[in-house]
């Protein structure tokens, strides 16, 4: 059996997510599908799963053309997807979860005996020992994932799509799941395994298919290609623009983080940030970057360690306290944490600076609020229909600028940016970086978390590498290529040649 995509094009307003993608996948093999953020791999998966339809091009199963009305239709035609957010109901038993909405019945009542027996048989053919009567909530994460896959297999699929199935698993659980996925190969199905973890591909996949910027770059047998080869296919030739040379890091240290811990998210993290420095934090998804930023900012509590700021040593923080100390944070999830989307642009530009627009502790200084809002709209070149329009009416890039403007109005000394370029267009991205540089020239220090490695290389003076909750080292972006940076993030090993070493380095890790 073969699953074939022919000349697939998918357009979204303002961007082409997939451009002329043709690929043939054979049953009995596991295909790793990889690509960096925005490469189009999730779009391709959605097409296979019937969630979206192609703008042009066709899908075939052998010679039969596939046209899906909706995800259910795709499911019925034998394409079953296991998503990374698990769809199990924790309070129900394993058997109930497998047969959700189709429990075996006898005389109109649920036949529990048959349900448990069928579930047990099914689990046995999968080669796993899980009691079908057990509630799912008592299972470990990898067992849950296996129940999920067993459920998918009970529909006798022809194509099984696994979307980052290990993202919620602990390190030791991953191996178990990968072995399980490998054992499915004997069946006559196409298995597509989507991941960003290259090391998993070497265990589980037969072939790797790479997408980049909406194009299908190629397939390669896992026996014939190494990490470096795959990384080269993922990134291609990337020209990294360099930051303006006139942004100088001052000697003075403005923020020092000492042995900060919040297991299991991050552990014993220490580093120092200098005045005017743009410090990047790189790492794979789940390395603890966002959690670290939120911990320092006081959005979530940390369990051990301290933060040194303006001569104070802080062991407990909260956002109000950190704002008073001159720190601002643009959160990762702009819509749910950064903005009050139903409120006006003016209000959203003034929330963080509310303490500064108050007269006598009670009254609002309305003229000052207007001035602050107008200042940011002008300086950040935010395109708005009007000050009183709701933020939800803006494009992603302009929304992000409102979030940044909200914080710049607090006149921060240190800004934290968490994935500021997510979901915004290239132009807006560049403008956000220009803002970061302009602030750095004024002596404002920046912590910058991004999953886009080329951004970090372009923007930062120095990049910390995080892996599994620990800072494993730091890289000098001026001598580092994107492929090297990617390898560092994955392996946690930083070659001496790209390690950042200057007078600042000895500060790291000191009390």
């Amino acid at each position, binding site marked *: 059996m073969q699953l074939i995509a022919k000349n697939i094009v998918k357009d979204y307003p303002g961007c082409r997510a997939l451009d002329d993608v043709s690929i043939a996948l054979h049953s009995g093999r596991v295909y790793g599908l990889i690509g960096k953020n925005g490469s189009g791999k999730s779009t391709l998966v959605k097409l296979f799963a019937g969630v979206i339809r192609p703008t042009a091009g066709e899908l075939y199963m052998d010679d039969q053309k596939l046209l899906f009305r909706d995800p259910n239709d795709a499911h019925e035609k034998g394409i079953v997807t296991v998503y990374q957010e698990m769809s199990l109901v924790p309070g129900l038993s394993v058997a109930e979860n497998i047969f959700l909405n189709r429990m075996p019945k006898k005389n109109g009542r649920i036949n529990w005996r048959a349900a448990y027996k069928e579930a047990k048989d099914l689990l046995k053919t999968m080669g796993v020992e899980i009691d079908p009567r057990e509630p799912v909530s008592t299972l470990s994460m990898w067992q849950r994932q296996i129940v999920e896959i067993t459920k998918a297999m009970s529909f006798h699929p022809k194509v099984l799509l696994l979307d980052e199935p290990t993202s919620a698993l602990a390190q030791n659980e991953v191996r178990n799941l990968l072995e399980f996925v490998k054992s499915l190969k004997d069946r006559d199905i196409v298995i597509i395994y989507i991941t960003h973890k290259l090391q998993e591909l070497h265990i589980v996949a037969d072939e790797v298919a790479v997408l980049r910027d909406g194009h299908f770059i190629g397939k390669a047998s896992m026996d014939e290609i190494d990490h470096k080869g795959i990384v080269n296919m993922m990134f291609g030739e990337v020209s990294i623009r360099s930051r303006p040379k006139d942004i100088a890091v001052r000697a003075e240290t403005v923020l020092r983080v000492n042995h900060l811990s919040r297991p299991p998210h991050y552990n014993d993290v220490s580093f120092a940030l200098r005045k005017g420095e743009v410090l990047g934090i790189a790492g794979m998804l789940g390395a603890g970057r966002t959690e670290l930023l939120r911990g320092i900012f006081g959005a979530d509590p940390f369990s051990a360690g301290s933060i040194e700021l303006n001569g104070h040593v802080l062991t407990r923080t909260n956002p109000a306290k950190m704002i*008073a100390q001159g720190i601002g944070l643009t959160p990762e999830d702009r819509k749910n944490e950064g903005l009050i989307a139903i409120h006006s642009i003016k*209000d959203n530009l003034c929330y963080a600076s*509310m303490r500064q627009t108050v007269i006598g502790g*009670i*009254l609002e200084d309305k003229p000052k609020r207007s001035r602050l809002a107008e200042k940011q709209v002008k300086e950040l070149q935010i395109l708005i229909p009007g000050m009183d329009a709701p933020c939800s009416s803006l494009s992603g890039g302009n929304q992000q600028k409102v979030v940044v403007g*909200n914080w710049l109005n607090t006149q921060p000394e240190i800004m934290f940016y968490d994935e500021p370029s997510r979901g915004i267009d290239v132009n807006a991205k560049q403008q956000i970086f220009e803002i970061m540089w302009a602030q750095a020239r004024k002596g404002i220090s920046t912590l910058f978390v991004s999953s886009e490695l080329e951004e970090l290389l372009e923007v930062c003076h120095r990049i910390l590498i995080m892996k599994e909750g620990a800072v494993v080292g730091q890289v000098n972006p001026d001598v580092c290529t994107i492929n090297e940076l990617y390898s560092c993030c994955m392996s946690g090993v930083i070659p001496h040649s790209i390690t950042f070493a200057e007078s600042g380095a000895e500060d790291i890790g000191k009390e």
Partner: protein
Amino acid sequence: MARNKWKRMLLDHIIELLLLLIIIALWAAKPSFMTLQNWLNIFKSVALKGVIACGMTMVIISGQIDLSIGSVVAISGVVTSYICDILPRATGMGLTAACIIGIIAAALLAIAIGVFHGFAQQKFGMPSFIVTLSTQLFLYGLAGIICNGFPITNKLPGWFNLIGTGRLGVVPVPAIILIIVFLICLFFMNYTHIGRSIYAVGGNQEAARLSGINVTRTKIFCFAATALLATLGGFMNSAQVLSASFSFGKGWETDVISSVVIGGTSMTGGIGKIRGTLLGIVFLGVIINGMTLLDVSVYMQYIIRGVLLFSSVLLSIFLPKLKQKLL
């Protein structure tokens, strides 16, 4: 284009139009409806729920709900009347002094209730609908124990009763109190730091917290303000009927929430106006008054109130969608 603009105007003022139609219909059916005396009556009777609705607007904008207000109405009257009854007899204290102590006691109790609501909701993550429903039962029970199951009648001093029955010229005092409360709330919501915080917390609690807004304090403010205003409503109620009982205020939350929602406040939080609530109160007053004038039976009144609550929330869900379509 011009047509859309016209449609938008219509949607923006649909409640005003509806109210106007109802007024005209009532006028046609009962000419006595359109007299100064009747309109003053409408304001007098609706003022009690009206002051509470001003507080409820804050609570709902902050993304919460308060179902305990009826029981606060009951207990505030009972506590004050009880103290006015007991203290002079036990200590020989004057009635005026006892009444002032009673008022202060009821107000402190209200603040305690508000703090409890805000704290329990935020710190334990309990839905405010359950927290305030629990307090409702608790307070009705407590009020019943204090008054021993019987109404406490005629214990309040004459000057206290003025806040329920007095008039300034022709205008009933409760109506004046409503206007004052309305202006204070209007000021708070539109011109102060705390008002801005209430909108922010209701609009997106996490974003508000990350912007350094004290979410717990904001919620406590809303709940405490509402309990205090319910206490004021309870005072006016006791003053009007010269009595206090644990059964007062039962079911008021329905009318209060209806008038807030009719006024355009969104049940999902973050959006709403005190100005709209005043309109909602008048709307409610006209409907209740109209039902009385037309001799609608008590049971039918229940049905109409139920329909009113349902349709006002339904309208508040669909109106913004309709408006968006026209944009």
